[in-house]
């Protein structure tokens, strides 16, 4: 990783510390600054409320010319998060072809929170969950709460 990329990650960490979005905690290891651990509370106005989710943000060597990679370490019932051991989230500005080098991690964290309040079923990685979200919101919310209870307490 180039010196420029390290400098940028350090500075972004400083910014995140100064202005952490509510309900988030960032664990940062200086020896391995390309991997951030984020602890995220389910937003109150969402069915994820009460859950605590662990995320990982990995910065590729080419950062900021390639997007950071977001993955949920806690299982989550969500149309935009893959339901496997990776728990990857890849949409919007996180997509390789939409990522812009001036984008910052804070924007990524805000995107994650927004998506928990309002999933994007049209750009889903889990089509069946997206379908349920669109057609049977009650069943969807029930499943979400069920998973929160099982995995995210």
């Amino acid at each position, binding site marked *: 990783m180039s010196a*420029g990329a390290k400098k940028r990650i350090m500075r972004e960490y400083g910014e995140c510390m100064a202005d952490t979005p509510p309900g988030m905690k960032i664990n940062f290891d200086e020896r391995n600054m390309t991997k951030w651990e984020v602890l995220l509370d389910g937003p109150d106005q969402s069915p994820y409320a009460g859950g605590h989710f662990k995320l990982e943000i990995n910065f590729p060597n*080419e950062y900021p010319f390639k997007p950071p990679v977001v993955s949920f370490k806690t299982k989550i019932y969500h149309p935009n998060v893959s339901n496997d051991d990776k728990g990857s989230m890849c949409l919007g500005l996180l997509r390789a072809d939409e990522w*812009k080098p*001036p984008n*910052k991690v804070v924007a990524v964290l805000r995107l994650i929170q927004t998506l928990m309040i309002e999933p994007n079923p049209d750009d889903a990685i889990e*089509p069946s969950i997206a379908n349920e979200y669109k057609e049977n919101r009650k069943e969807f919310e029930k499943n979400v709460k069920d998973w929160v209870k099982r995995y995210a307490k």
Partner: protein
Amino acid sequence: MAFDEELAQLQKLSGEYEPEATGPLVGERQSSAAITTEYANADPIYRIKTAALPAKYAYFRTCRGDGHCGWRAIAFTYFEALVRVGNATKFTEEEARLSSMHNLLDSAGFPHDVYIDWAEEAFDLLRELAQSLRNEDGRAADLLLHKFNDLGTSLSIMTYFKLLASAWVQSNSENFKHFVPMGDVKTYCSLNIEAANCEIDNVAIVALSEAIITPAGIGFEIMYLDRSPGEEVNVTPFSQPTDHTGMPLPNPPVIRLLYRPGHYDILYKAGDFSPTVQHQPVQPQTPLHVALAAGYHDSFIPVDSNVDVMTMIPGMYSTGLGQRWPPVSYDFDPSPTPQAQMTPVQPYAPTPTPITSVPSTHQEYMSPVHASHMAHHNIQLEQPPVTLPIHPPRPPPLSIERSPLTIERGGPFRPSIYELEPGFASGQVHSLPFQTAIFRNSHYNTAHFLNPDFQPEEWSPDTEYSTANKGKYKST
């Protein structure tokens, strides 16, 4: 449902597929004859266009086809053009000028702390190149190539250029909005210019040209090589720098890119690098560009002549190219005296003194109405040509102090790229840089009867049983 998921999975895989891009980010400068060779088996339009390429654009440089090639080519050639100008103060001026555009970046909403890193990379490079020029260590070109082959550095500089292009488009949205979908300049810039992974398009090219290249006093042309009808690549000028009075700058450095659908490489004219051209005060009217075989065919019209036995040989001009290169003798002579005489044909000698004189001509040429600078050419108008030689061969010119680039044409062959290289015609048949099947059967091979240096292959008892010479060809 399972089928849908499978499809979605396949779609995802194909969307994520990236062909392995190979080669250096920016390659070494090489003879553009390589492009001709590359297209030797392509369809006729490509073949004709690429065959005409090396005569005008002697060199080219590859850029890795990783989706950034156009951005990288422009950023690289911008710095390279400044190096070619060779004026260290120009680098300081450029740094000041680029910094003065940062208010555009601010008003486009880019955070200062983010873009300043990339700007600093560009400024560092400007400073290092200026320092190298001041030291006259001759390393500037190598340093530039080295820097641009560092992924981080070249991405930083390209991103800086991208942001400048985007800010330029947004601050001149009136001019650009008719060229973007729905006139939505902001969204367009975000997706097509600022995005980390987007190929350069014409809007961005115009923006870079207006924001960065033209104000630096650099010309900018793109040669489009495609299947459109024609015998040469289509040249589109994007920048023609002018001075403060609006007059075009004399002899500006020019950035030339070769565009093949989906990919950009860099082209050069031979004069871009010839020291003879660079350090000599070049008058706009000197026949030097003629000596470099650039564009002179516009000024002459071959007149039909039944004396040209070459045309009677079937298949002689099968490519249709032979006629494009009339056997007119061009003589570069530093003295302004017009030489309206029969000139001896020199064997492509870039040496100051001609070695032998072989008077020969097969065709006669008439100059068209505009004969303003005809005095520089030696045109034979003998009629009929069989009376040759009328004049005795001219003795070697005595008044040449500098080594002029002398290339004289005696046969119906267009100039070969090798003539422009140092050491050409140093007495021996130059060694071949490569030997492919395509090459062996082309007229670039001296063993081909169309080669101006035609030299039949000879049997040599020493190599009869040698098996080790295959590898030798490639190493030169």
